[in-house]
């Protein structure tokens, strides 16, 4: 709170070894605080700052006449072997937890695993054909879709429920999420390459298939058309 120029009134708080070594009597008016005090200041600034702080910035923030470079030397020594270390980041300084204690910070081990073949295929079908019902996914994949696969994709926040289809049984539809688009770097599901492009990219070897469809032409739009769209079946995509 105080905006008054800081007077070195904390000398007693400063460690004795540094506070006493300078000749107090000779200090001019507005003398810099003793080095112990400067070290405290650097310590506090580095602790509270959201970014590493350069020596120049330290000097600008500390009272006139301070020598942050020297204070940093003292501080670095003080934190050697501690749980927290002073580290240099480019031409700036920051406090970081000691690398060997990293295990305390990351209590979780994140293991990256590949999605199962069933999951990635299901995801692809949802992305290309959304909104799509489970029955339709099964129709396209030719095998049943397990509850676990859907759950996993839900948990990853890559798919979500769309509107129910206005057909008997009112089956629920699936859509891909914003999270999905973010993860795969897409602006919209319409940006997914079409089959012809897949083929051009060599992902679809072999002979040209009967399908010339552009994905995303049918119902990549979100919810509104899903409900009243029973007429234009998703399976149309495959029937030409």
């Amino acid at each position: 709170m105080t905006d008054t120029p800081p007077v070195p009134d904390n000398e007693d708080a400063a460690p004795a070894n540094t506070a006493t070594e300078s000749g107090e009597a000779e200090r001019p008016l507005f003398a810099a605080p003793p080095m112990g005090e400067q070290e405290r200041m650097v310590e506090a600034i580095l602790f509270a700052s959201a970014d590493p702080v350069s020596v120049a910035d330290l000097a600008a923030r500390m009272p006139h006449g301070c020598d942050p470079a020297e204070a940093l030397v003292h501080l670095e020594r003080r934190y050697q072997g501690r749980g927290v270390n002073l580290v240099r980041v480019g031409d700036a300084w920051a406090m970081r937890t000691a690398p060997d204690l990293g295990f305390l910070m990351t209590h979780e081990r994140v293991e990256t695993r590949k999605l199962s073949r069933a999951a990635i295929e299901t995801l692809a079908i949802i992305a290309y054909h959304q909104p799509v019902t489970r029955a339709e996914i099964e129709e396209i994949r030719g095998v049943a879709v397990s509850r676990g696969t859907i759950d996993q994709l839900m948990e990853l926040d890559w798919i979500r429920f769309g509107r129910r289809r206005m057909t008997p049984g009112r089956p629920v539809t699936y859509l891909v999420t914003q999270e999905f688009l973010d993860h795969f770097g897409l602006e919209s599901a319409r940006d997914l390459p079409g089959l012809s492009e897949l083929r051009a990219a060599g992902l679809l070897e072999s002979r040209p298939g009967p399908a010339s469809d552009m994905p995303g032409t049918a119902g990549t739009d979100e919810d509104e058309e899903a409900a009243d769209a029973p007429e234009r079946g998703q399976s149309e995509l495959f029937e030409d």
Partner: protein
Amino acid sequence: MSEAYGDSSEWDGQERLSVGQRLAEEALIVDVDGFEGPLDLLLTLSRSQKVDLRRISVLQLAEQYLTFVERAKALRIELAADYLVMAAWLAYLKSRLLLPPDPTEEGPSGEELAAHLAFQLERLQAMREAAARLMARDRKGQDFFVRGIPEEVTRTRRYRYDATLLDLMQAYARVRTRDEFRPYAFDRADVYGLDEALARLRAMLGDLPGWAPLSDFLPEGWRGQPARRRSATAATFAASLELAKAGQVELRQPDTFATIELRRKPSSES
């Protein structure tokens, strides 16, 4: 501003107020919005007694308050109802304090009521001082600061599933090429044949009382999914034409695109 009241005895005769005193008094009244209710105003008035709140004269305070309310009325200043309720209560309190106690009357004595009012004022004042001391403390984000670069810790073990756009496209390509490599076969799963439709229609004709829409003849399981419904409708319609040609049914359609209906041809009975 309470200081401006001077000695409270002057409130007894309003004529004797000096100009300065009257201005101060009016300022207080005009400022009544700035008070948070009667208790707040009473606390301010009580300061003019310049004594410890524990030794405050509640009688004097009641008179000050009543004078205040009278002046506000004289100046035609609207006072909120709770100020007037407090005035009425203080007038009652005043009478209880001034008159000798009536032994037949139930309830607390004037002194008890006065003591409680004094307690309330003291407690409110104490809370105000406590609030001020609290806000004067060193505060986080103002005087002391937290770690600027916290290192977040999450404590759940989890697996991160990853997939690239390439994975996704390859998967889709795989699904689609699987279809393409399938030996050619007409996919009959969603096709309702003419023969089936004919057989079904013939079987149903016997029970038909009158006109019925064509859609009633669609088999179960072929009415929902669009592709299947289309196929069944086409087959049933074709079958109905076939039967009409054979003279077994009649067809009608009232208007273009209207529902097609059919019935057993009456003459076919004979």
